[in-house]
């Protein structure tokens, strides 16, 4: 099996695993980080080291990092918490959010939930490459807009939104900016000291950390304020209660430290693999690349392609030895074509016949060659089998 689905999740890096182990062993460092005694202080110290490691990866202060269970919770906390802090829905004031049609489901579903409570939400349509421009966001702003939620890197097609350009213009207008950076952390250089993002979500398992832990960056200057969505002991500056999972937190810290240390090598490796695979697969007649092709506006670690003229399920079945995401990507349980590809203007048929290849540290050039050979052969075979007029 060749695994090319690193954008869905990564394995835990060996060094991350080793860093976590002392906190998992029966005779290990089991203290509650909130306890005021020796074992508690040790756990607390490990949590704070990890907090610094996460902060360092994104150019933040450690005190701006709030631990969560992952990017889904971070996104929920950011969006719901920001609105609730402003009195929504109790104060009855109109509230408007701007987001895009191609956000992750956890942002879209959170927005839809807020709509049921009376919020107004604008879901912007991206351009043909999946990009939501700063101009499009600014044009959607109304006097009631309190929050813009936009992903930095699209998880299906790798489009990079120009957050650097958008952030200061929202700051001028007094509108908060939340960024889902689950696919951006460790893939793009992020420096929140220079980019005026207020809230930013990250996840550990997208960058060789464990599943079940993530973080929300909450800016301190100027202070981004949130109402907690999880109530309890007032942990995490009152924004997210619950005893911290020390081993998970330590794993996320180690993963971020590793991502920072390996950043240049990782990006160069992924970009090389992506470009090599595209060079091979673009020889397939009629193949379509979903998302941008120009260097810095395309995430380095993934490639999304459509293969018109083949049926999606048979395409996936014929590639049984290769783990990739299909045109239904994160929504594969619903068997519906990807809403991201549809927002780009792909029809259902083409969206279904799409594959997302995403690359990891262990992916080799030989694997890319093998995958290219297989995909080229299987697409040709399925087209040969088809009675439909030839595409491309």
């Amino acid at each position, binding site marked *: 099996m060749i695994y090319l689905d690193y954008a869905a999740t990564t394995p835990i890096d060996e060094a991350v695993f080793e860093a976590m182990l002392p906190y998992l062993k029966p005779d290990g460092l089991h203290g509650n980080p909130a306890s005021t005694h020796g074992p508690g202080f040790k756990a607390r110290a490990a949590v704070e080291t990890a907090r610094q490691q996460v902060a360092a990866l994104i150019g933040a202060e450690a005190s701006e990092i709030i631990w969560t269970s992952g990017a889904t919770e971070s996104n929920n906390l950011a969006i719901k918490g920001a609105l609730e802090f402003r009195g929504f829905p109790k104060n009855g004031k109109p509230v408007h959010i701007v987001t895009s049609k191609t956000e992750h489901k956890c942002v879209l579903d959170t927005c839809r939930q807020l709509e049921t409570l009376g919020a107004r939400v604008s879901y912007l349509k991206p351009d043909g490459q999946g990009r939501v421009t700063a101009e499009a966001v600014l044009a959607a702003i109304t006097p009631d807009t309190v929050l813009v939620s936009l992903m930095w890197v699209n998880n299906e097609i790798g489009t990079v939104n120009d957050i650097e350009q958008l952030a200061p213009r929202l700051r001028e207008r007094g509108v908060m900016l939340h960024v889902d950076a689950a696919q951006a952390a460790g893939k793009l250089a992020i420096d929140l000291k220079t980019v005026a993002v207020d809230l930013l979500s990250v996840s550990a398992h997208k960058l060789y950390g464990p599943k079940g832990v993530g973080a929300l960056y909450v800016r301190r200057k100027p202070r981004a304020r949130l109402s907690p969505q999880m109530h309890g002991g007032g942990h995490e500056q009152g924004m997210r209660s619950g005893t911290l999972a020390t081993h998970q937190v330590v794993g996320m810290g180690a993963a971020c430290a590793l991502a920072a240390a390996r950043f240049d090598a990782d990006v160069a490796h992924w970009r090389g693999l992506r470009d090599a695979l595209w060079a091979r697969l673009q020889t397939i007649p009629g193949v379509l690349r979903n998302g941008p092709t120009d260097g810095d506006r395309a995430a380095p670690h993934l490639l999304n392609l459509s293969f018109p003229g083949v*049926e999606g*399920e*048979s395409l996936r*079945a014929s590639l*049984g030895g290769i783990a990739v995401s299909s045109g239904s990507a994160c929504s594969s349980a619903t068997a519906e074509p990807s809403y991201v590809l549809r927002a780009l203007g792909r029809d259902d048929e083409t969206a*279904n016949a799409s594959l997302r290849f995403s690359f990891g540290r262990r992916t080799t050039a030989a694997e890319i060659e093998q995958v290219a050979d297989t995909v080229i052969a299987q697409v040709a075979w399925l087209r*040969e*089998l088809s*009675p439909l007029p030839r595409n491309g």
Partner: protein
Amino acid sequence: MTETDDGNAFGYAPEIWRLFRNAPNAGAFPDGTPGVVSAEAGTPAARSVLRLALRFDGARVIDGRFQAYGCPASIAVGAWIAGWASGRHVDELRLLKAAHLREALEIPEDRAHCALLGEDALRAVLSRHQEQRA
């Protein structure tokens, strides 16, 4: 569902998987081949098209070919019918129903339309064959 060594990562029934992977009888007869009757059936909602071509000697099929656009089950149905029909008389072919296809290929309920696709394609061929002989 568990992955098997033959690459059947999605756990298709063994016969569906075998016919999908090997696709026996795939293709079309060369233009002008005598005795060939072909017809198509489709299920637009399920986005499948099956073209079945049978070569007849009178009322008996000599051999068959198929082309298919669709899921593995619909491809397997085409391959199965094209092979099964060979050597059979039209009276036998008329008895084939979707239920037989579902049983022979272990086609699950949610893919029942693939079996209907096969039955429709075969009926269309037989109907055309009858017209030609009339």
